[in-house]
């Protein structure tokens, strides 16, 4: 066991974890504020990737332009879902919300097949970030280092938004005391729409950032990541952004070390961890006990 090996296993785990965090952040935000477990979040991830790909091919191949425009296009889908569908089931039991959002997963999977075809699309590399850097004698992709930096920045930005701005204050108010907030003049429905669209944007952003990372776009690509994102949201404590960040870090490192040192169990480690957390601390790391 060399230092080189340990460092690279850690780096691989960090980049995996930060990817899961980027997707789980939107999921957690939406649950924390709206109380909706949004199954379609994986679809936002997939749509983000595809829209980014299309935007960058249409606009001369600049990844950064695709990254800017792609997720914004997906926000339209988020707006429609919240404004015209989800709004009418907030007062119903959780299974109704799950069924509704799951229906959108199926719709979006087929939509992607209709628009982009059933096959896979090869993705481009990012100028300036496409190479690798030599770390202790083994190469690590620059782009993955970039993701390792972007992840905490997004966490910091979200924390600042929610804890330090006026918008964050009314979000917190509306999520804990919906009726009281409405009574003192907070436009709760519009606020919820804006939070859902913002969560959509975060998921789509994760997908767009994944374009150069996974190297291949396929219909249904959201499914594997959404399972991890759900696990992360649950063990972190549903609705806790802090918990989701920590959970994503742990899951990322666990899968990297697991694949390297416990290959026979690598597929189960995540679920073993989830089972352990649910048994010992059912509300998750930072969840509120009910």
């Amino acid at each position, binding site marked *: 066991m*060399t230092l080189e*090996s340990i460092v*690279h*296993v850690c780096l*691989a*785990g960090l*980049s*995996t974890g930060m*990817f899961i965090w980027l997707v789980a952040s939107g999921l957690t935000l939406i649950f924390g504020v709206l109380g909706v477990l949004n199954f379609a979040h994986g679809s936002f991830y997939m749509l983000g990737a595809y829209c980014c790909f299309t935007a960058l091919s249409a606009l001369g191949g600049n990844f950064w332009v695709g990254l800017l425009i792609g997720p914004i296009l997906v926000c339209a889908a988020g707006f429609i879902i919240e404004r015209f569908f989800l709004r009418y089931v907030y007062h119903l039991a959780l299974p109704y919300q799950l069924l509704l959002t799951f229906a959108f997963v199926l719709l979006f999977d087929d939509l992607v*097949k209709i628009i982009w*075809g*059933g*096959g*896979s699309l*090869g993705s481009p590399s990012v100028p300036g970030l496409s*190479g*690798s850097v030599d770390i202790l004698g*083994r*190469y*690590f*992709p620059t782009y*993955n280092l970039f993701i390792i930096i972007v992840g905490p920045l997004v966490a910091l930005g979200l924390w600042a938004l929610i804890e330090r701005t006026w918008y964050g204050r009314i979000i917190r108010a509306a999520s804990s005391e919906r009726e009281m907030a409405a009574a003192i003049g907070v436009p709760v429905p519009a606020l919820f729409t804006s939070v859902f669209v913002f969560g959509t944007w975060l998921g789509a952003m994760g997908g767009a950032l*994944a374009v150069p*990372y*996974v*190297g*291949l776009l*396929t*219909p*249904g*690509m959201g*499914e*594997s990541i959404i399972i991890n994102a759900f696990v992360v949201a649950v063990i972190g404590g549903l609705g806790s952004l802090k918990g989701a960040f920590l959970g994503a870090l742990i899951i990322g490192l666990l*899968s*990297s070390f*697991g*694949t*390297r040192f416990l*290959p026979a169990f*690598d*597929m189960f480690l995540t679920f073993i961890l989830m089972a352990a957390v649910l048994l010992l601390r059912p509300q998750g790391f930072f969840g509120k006990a009910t």
Partner: protein
Amino acid sequence: MAKKGWTRRRFIQAGLLTTGAAALGGFAKPTGLWAATPKIKGPIKVGYQAVMSGTLAGYGDFHKMGATLGMEEINAAGGIAGNKLEIEFRDSTLKTPEAIQNARYFVDSWGADFLAGVDSSGQALALAPVMAELDKVLMVTHAATEKLTEEQVFKNGVRQIFRICNATYQDGNAAAFVAKDLPAKTWATVSPKYEYGYTCWEMFKNTLGKLKKDVSFTAESWAPFGTTDFRPHINTIMDAKPDGLYSTEWAGELITFVKQANQAGLFEKIKHVMFPVGAAMDVLEGLGAEMPDNIWISGRYFFLYPNNSRNNEWVQRFRKRWDHFPAYVSETGYSTMFAFKKAVEASGSKETKAVIQALEGMQMDSPAGPRVFRKEDHQAMYDVPWGLTVADAKYPFKIMGKQVMVPAKECFNRPPFEGDASKPPF
């Protein structure tokens, strides 16, 4: 289970037929020459299933192109014994229940005479007992597990299954024959975490271990289906520092793996790399210039082999029709239609029993060269080369240069069959 296939539709059909036959029997009994002449009532219908959605949907398209071209050429030249050939395609989705449902639909509802296709080994194995019950011939054009022919056909006697593509023998045994001449002493693998990945690596290890005493196998990493991040697997291999890497990753996942291995500098450190299914067109086209040089690749067929007019003209026709180079499943799909044609015309019948008899031991010419269906296990024997990737100005992707041929009869002789093909070389 046998009762289940006896659906109401078939019951009514059978009832009507017997009544009709009894009514006609008195005055329309065929006599003389007419009764002896075999009569094939067309059209000949082939139900073809392949994966048409998901990561591997590109394969379905290539199956379809090949089979459709075969059908068009056969029909333009007068069909099969004067009957029109018809194909219906269905998405197998790679899921086992779907494969069985498709097969039942084809036979019970659509009236298929033959079935073809199937990409996944798991699906093919699950279909075997169903085919015995439906009693129609299934020509497998892609799924490679040797258990299909060794266990289901040879041991369990499911005579309805044939395979026109080559099996894991090519991916495991033939790879070992190539590897024994390489200077590599230590080998490692990153392969798919399912039946196909495990079997190929086992076969490669066994055969290479017997052919060359001083090799060792130092690391293995198994990537579950749907892996998009191969970095942890690449770390395992880089830590083991092997001389050679053997990987049966395929299609989109092989593309992702190669891209990420490039970034990690894996091909600079490991000089001998073998991709048994690397010569698939979707991989070569998908990677383009990103496929490194001097990688050993193979497949079920490669469009530059054999270099004869039969193959070259076929590749030209295929390109003219589809604007693509034929992938290996295009060749197997195409040749399947001609195998059916030859068997039906030789036996003068499209009845399953007669067709099986005709197919057993049948020789045919195909773009991939001459093929023989081994009588014992219904596996087609034909030669496919291994070769090193190289850039060529004529193509926008890397091609298979420096071809090495391990003849099928040398690497296909693992199972315990009787006859010439069964003598082990080691």
